[in-house]
C-alpha cells in the first residue's frame, strides 16, 4: 500500500484517496506479468537441458543446470545466419528506396501546388486502406511476370512506395520555415539541392520514426515472402522460423524451438529496449503501417 501511495503522489490531491484507479492499476500489473510469461518461458526453455524431460518443459523455474545446447542445435539445424542476412537485405532495400520515394513525394505535397493535388492525395490515401497483404494474389502474378519470382527484389517491390511515409514527410517538411528555402534559393540552389541540404537534414527525427516502423513491419512480414520465395537459401527469418518450427515440432524439440524463436526476435527486442522512447513515439504516429 505504501508503494501504491508513492506512485500516486503526483496525482491531483482530491483524487488521491480513490480506490478504483488503484484496483485498475493492480489488475494491469497482474496482466503485464501474464503478458511477459511467453517471453519468460522462451528464455527458461532455451536454457533447459534436454535431460530434464518433456514433462518439465513447461516449468517456469529456470533449470539448475543451464545449457546452451538448444541454441547450438537451433543454429545448426535452422540456417539462421542466412535467414537473418536475407531479412536484413530485404528491410534495408525497402527502406533505402522508400527514403527516396517518400522524400520526393512528401516534398511535392508539402511545398508545391499542382493540378489534381486533391485527387492524387486521395490516391495515396487509398494505399493506407488497401493493405498490400490483401492484394497478394494479383501482386504475385505481376512479380512472376516481371521475372522476379523467387527473388528478394520481388519480395521488396510492392513496398517501394509508402503513403504513410509520404504523409509523414509531408508533415515534417511543412514544419520547416520557408525562409530557409528562400535563402538557399537566392544563393542559386536547385530544387534537389534544397531538398538534399535543407529539408532532409532538418527532418531526421521523422526519417528515424519512419525507419523504425518500416523495418519492424517488414522484419515481421510472413505471408508475402512465403509466396514469393521458393528456394530455401532465400528465405527471410519469419519463413525460416515457420519451416524450422514445423520440423522441430515433429520431434517435440521445444527447447530448440524456443531457442530459434529467441534468435529471431532478439535483434528487435534489444533494439527496442535501447531506443524504447523512440519506438513508442514512432508507433503512435504509425496508425497504419
Amino acid at each position: 500500500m505504501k508503494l501504491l501511495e508513492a506512485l500516486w503522489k503526483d496525482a491531483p490531491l482530491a483524487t488521491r484517496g480513490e480506490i478504483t484507479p488503484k484496483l485498475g492499476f493492480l489488475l494491469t500489473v497482474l496482466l503485464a506479468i501474464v503478458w511477459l510469461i511467453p517471453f519468460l518461458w522462451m528464455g527458461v526453455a532455451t536454457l533447459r537441458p534436454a535431460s530434464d524431460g518433456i514433462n518439465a518443459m513447461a516449468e517456469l523455474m529456470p533449470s539448475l543446470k543451464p545449457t546452451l545446447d538448444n541454441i547450438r542445435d537451433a543454429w545448426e539445424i535452422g540456417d539462421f545466419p542466412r535467414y537473418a542476412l536475407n531479412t536484413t537485405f530485404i528491410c534495408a532495400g525497402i527502406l533505402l528506396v522508400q527514403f527516396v520515394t517518400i522524400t520526393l513525394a512528401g516534398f511535392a505535397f508539402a511545398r508545391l501546388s499542382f493540378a489534381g493535388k486533391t485527387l492524387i492525395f486521395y490516391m495515396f490515401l487509398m494505399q493506407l486502406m488497401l493493405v498490400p497483404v490483401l492484394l497478394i494474389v494479383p501482386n504475385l502474378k505481376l512479380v512472376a511476370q516481371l521475372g522476379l519470382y523467387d527473388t528478394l527484389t520481388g519480395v521488396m517491390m510492392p513496398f517501394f512506395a509508402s503513403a504513410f511515409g509520404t504523409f509523414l514527410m509531408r508533415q515534417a517538411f511543412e514544419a520547416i520555415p520557408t525562409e530557409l528555402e528562400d535563402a538557399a534559393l537566392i544563393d542559386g540552389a536547385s530544387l534537389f539541392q534544397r531538398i538534399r541540404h535543407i529539408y532532409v537534414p532538418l527532418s531526421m527525427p521523422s526519417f528515424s520514426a519512419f525507419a523504425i516502423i518500416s523495418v519492424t513491419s517488414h522484419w515481421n512480414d510472413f505471408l508475402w515472402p512465403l509466396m514469393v520465395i521458393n528456394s530455401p537459401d532465400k528465405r527471410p527469418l519469419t519463413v525460416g522460423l515457420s519451416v524450422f518450427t514445423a520440423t522441430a515440432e515433429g520431434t517435440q524439440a521445444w527447447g530448440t524451438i524456443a531457442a530459434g524463436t529467441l534468435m529471431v526476435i532478439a535483434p528487435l527486442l534489444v533494439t527496442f529496449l535501447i531506443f524504447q522512447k523512440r519506438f513508442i513515439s514512432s508507433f503512435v504516429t504509425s496508425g497504419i503501417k
Partner: protein
Amino acid sequence: MSLAEPAALPVATSAAPRLHVLKRFSSRFKTSLPAYLLLLPSLVFLALFTYGAMGRVFIDALYQRATPKAPVRFVGLDNINAVLADPAFVGAVVNNLIYAVGTAIPSIGLALLFALALSRTHAVNSALRAALFLPVLIPMVAASALFLFIFLPNVGLLDYYIGRFLPVLPNWLGDPDIALYAIMVITIWKNAGYYMLFFLAGLQAVPEDVMEAAHLDGAGPYRRFRHIILPELKPTFLFVIVIATLNAVTQVDHVFVMTKGGPSNSTNLVLFYIYQQAVEHYDIGKASAATLLTLAALMGLTALSFRTMANREGGP
C-alpha cells in the same frame, strides 16, 4: 519551367487571364510538371502494386481455366458464384466475423484499461508499458511458435499450470469448438499493447483541471470516466476500431503456422482461404473472386475511415 525555379512562382503564373482553354490546360500542366516528376517514382509503384493490382483482381475474377494447363476463358460471374457457394468460403467469412469481434472488443477494452492505469509517466509505468508493448514488436510467426507450446496438450504451459484445475483437459488447438478462440487469444495478446499507445496519446487531451473540478462536484471515478474521459476519447476509439478490423482481416500468419485453417476448417480465415485457393489449388479465378469480395466488404469501412484518416493527415 525548370526544376530550379522557385516553388511559389507557378501559383502566380497560372492565374493569367483569358487564355485559351487548351493553352491554360497546358500551362497548368507545365507549372505542375516538377511536382509530377517528384511524385512519379511513388506513383509508378502505387500504379503497379495497388491500383494495378485492384484492376487485375477485377479481371482475373472473370476468367477461369477448365484444367490447370488449359487457356483462360471468360466466365463472367461464375467465379464469384462458385466462391459464394463454397462452404469453406462462407465458413471462413463467419469465422472471420467471430474473430474480428472477438479480438477487437477484448483487445480494445484491455488497451483502454492499460492506458487509464498507466497514463501518468514515471519509471514504474514506463516499464509496465514496455512489458505490454513487447508482443507488438515480435513477428506473428514467432508468437505462434511460442503459443504452439503454450497450447500443447498435456505438457504445454497452459495445461501444466491451469489444466490441473480443470476436470477434462481441452485440446486447445485440436478441438474445432475451441481452436478459433485459442487463435484469438494470441491476437489479443499481440495487439492490446499497440492500441494502448493510441489511448495513451488520446488521454493526453483530457484536461486534468476539468477532472479535478468534476471530482470536487462529487463525481466519482466511474462518472468522470463516463462523462469526461470517454467523450474525449471518441476519435481514438473510431481510429482504433478501424485498425483492429483491418488487422482481423490481414493478420493470419498464426493460422498458417499453428492450424493451417483446421481442425475441419474451424480456424480458416478469409485471407488464408485466398492463399489456399491461389497457392495450394492454383485457382487464380476463385482466389481473385474471394479477394474482390473481401475488398468490397472493406469498402464500407473504407468510407468511414477515409474521413478519419484524411482528417488525421491534415487534408489535401
